[in-house]
């Protein structure tokens, strides 16, 4: 139990990135294999977190505590509960996928590219496992830097605009969070321990202010309507790997923040402001669904689809039921797999055609049948078809929402119609129909490496869709505990 698996999950990728950088981009063969080894090692050290996890216990496990800045009582305090543990695994798994996805495609500065992803992976694990507010903030901000570089260096033509927009948006939000963290630090008499903050009695006004400060920060990250416009730009310009990490992991940080900070620290404000949160979530689900429908760029379409799906997640949190919160967490993990797969599919086509415009495609199934089959599975999962992971989370949230209020559930269910419309319409226009573009006629089907990546994700999507119990089992105790905590007033 005391093998410091969380520290390993954070520091194996970060320290492993150093030799990758030192190898330099000339030795491409070595760089790739070393990066893959580090990513696999990083994933391997997270497995004991799942195997050794005590599902009956609601509290933090694998806790590590070392004084960090003793003068201010800051600690290097790590730990995971059933809510955060799955995300550490998801993140480390996606890192392996991303390294494989950048195997041949990245031609310039490959060592730096791989190192940026490895470092980011470690930092993300830090965010999910930090239990010290200031340590959390450090990881949260530090993770912006590799992402900024990935978009800004390996991105498309408008990469600098997109990278700066991404950076400014998220930084602006997190500055308010820093204010809230410092206020909590002082209010709790000099403790930065998040678990102490959970127990801190607060009046209604401070709770609302704290809630809003966290909301601004996390809403940008999720992203919630109306602070979502950085995401389509960032996705379109980011390289495939960047889009994958952005969609699969970075978006989850905001949603995770709500369950780790907003709900338990300001439970009364959460209840008070829940109608606002539900309204914003439903706006995201419906408004963004319509916007996704008319996109002509595939990456933009999937980016908007991500916003819509994340609206579901925030909706699930603020209906305060076990179904809602567990459904949201399942939806987050499932969306990690599906959005990663969708962006990889678009990346595979982009590598061959250098276009993301739907109008440039048509009839891809004739030349890439194996690819078309995978793309079909992931499109269906994005729609939320039963037996795929997309269904489980959406079903739980809709069920929870209908119990909460019939019309809220009804509005949320609109996403199923809209999701089917925009995803399947895109699939039809890209994959079926006659070949109109001569370049499509010259396409070659996916090779072994691409097959492996998509197959791994397909297994995850189907496994989670057919048998979600291993995922919900680990969350159950922690979610119950959270709900009990949120139900008790702090006033």
């Amino acid at each position, binding site marked *: 139990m005391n093998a410091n698996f969380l520290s390993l999950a954070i520091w194996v990728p970060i320290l492993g990135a150093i030799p990758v950088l030192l190898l330099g981009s000339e030795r491409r063969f070595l760089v790739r294999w070393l990066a893959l080894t580090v990513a696999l090692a990083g994933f391997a050290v997270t497995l004991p977190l799942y195997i050794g996890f005590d599902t009956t216990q609601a509290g933090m496990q694998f806790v590590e505590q070392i004084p960090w800045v003793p003068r201010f009582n800051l600690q290097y305090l790590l730990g995971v509960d059933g809510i955060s543990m799955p995300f550490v695994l998801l993140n480390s798994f996606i890192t392996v996928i991303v390294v494989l996805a950048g195997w041949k495609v990245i031609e310039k500065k490959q060592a730096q590219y791989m190192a940026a992803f490895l470092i980011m992976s470690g930092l993300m694990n830090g965010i999910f496992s930090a239990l010290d507010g200031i340590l959390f903030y450090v990881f949260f901000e530090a993770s912006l830097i590799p992402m900024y570089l990935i978009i800004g260096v390996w991105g498309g033509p408008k990469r600098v605009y997109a990278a700066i927009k991404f950076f400014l948006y998220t930084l602006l939000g997190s500055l308010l969070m820093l204010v809230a963290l410092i206020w909590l630090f002082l209010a709790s008499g000099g403790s930065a321990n998040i678990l102490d903050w959970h127990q801190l009695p607060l009046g209604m006004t401070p709770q609302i202010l704290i809630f809003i400060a966290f909301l601004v920060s996390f809403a940008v990250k999720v992203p919630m309507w109306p602070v979502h*416009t950085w995401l389509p730009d960032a996705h379109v310009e980011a390289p495939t790997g960047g889009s994958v990490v952005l969609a699969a992991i970075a978006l989850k940080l905001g949603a995770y923040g709500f369950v780790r900070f907003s709900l338990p620290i300001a439970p009364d404000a959460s209840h008070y402001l829940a109608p606002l949160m539900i309204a914003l979530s439903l706006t995201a689900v419906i408004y963004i669904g319509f*916007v996704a429908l008319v996109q002509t760029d595939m990456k933009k379409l999937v980016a908007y689809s991500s916003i819509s799906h994340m609206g579901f997640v925030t909706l699930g949190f603020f209906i305060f039921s076990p179904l809602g919160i567990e459904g949201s967490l399942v939806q987050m993990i499932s969306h990690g797999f599906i959005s990663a797969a969708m962006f990889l599919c678009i990346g595979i086509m982009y590598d061959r055609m250098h276009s993301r415009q739907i109008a440039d495609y048509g009839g891809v199934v004739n030349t890439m049948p194996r690819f078309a089959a995978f793309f079909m599975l992931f499109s269906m999962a994005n729609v939320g078809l039963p037996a795929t992971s997309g269904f489980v989370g959406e079903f739980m949230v809709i069920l929870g929402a209908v119990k909460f209020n019939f019309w809220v559930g009804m509005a949320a269910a609109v996403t199923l119609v809209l999701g089917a419309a925009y995803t399947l319409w895109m699939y039809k226009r890209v994959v079926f129909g006659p070949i109109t573009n001569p370049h499509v006629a010259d396409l070659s089907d996916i090779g072994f490496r691409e097959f492996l990546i998509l197959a791994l994700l397909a297994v995850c999507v189907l496994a989670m869709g057919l048998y979600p119990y291993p995922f919900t089992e680990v969350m159950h105790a922690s979610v119950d505990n959270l709900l009990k905590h949120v139900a008790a007033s702090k006033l």
Partner: protein
Amino acid sequence: MPLYTLLDNKYYFDKFNAVVFAGGARLLGRGLWKGGDQALIDGFMVNGSAHVVGWFAGLVKKLQTGYIYQYAFGMILGVAAFLTYWFNRI
């Protein structure tokens, strides 16, 4: 014969769906995208706030001429205003 055409076109239900529901949804989507996302959020709120800062900076830039006599004149005005307030206070 009109009956045959009506039945052959399935009471025009497919056409109705394509024009009203699908077309309407696309129209709404385009309106929200261009009008909401691009014009209102990105244009007015995001880039608009940046423009306001830039415009304001351009305005106050004009005050920073670097001429010492203009700064001195500003100070004299300030002292005059302060003294006026001071002597007329209740």
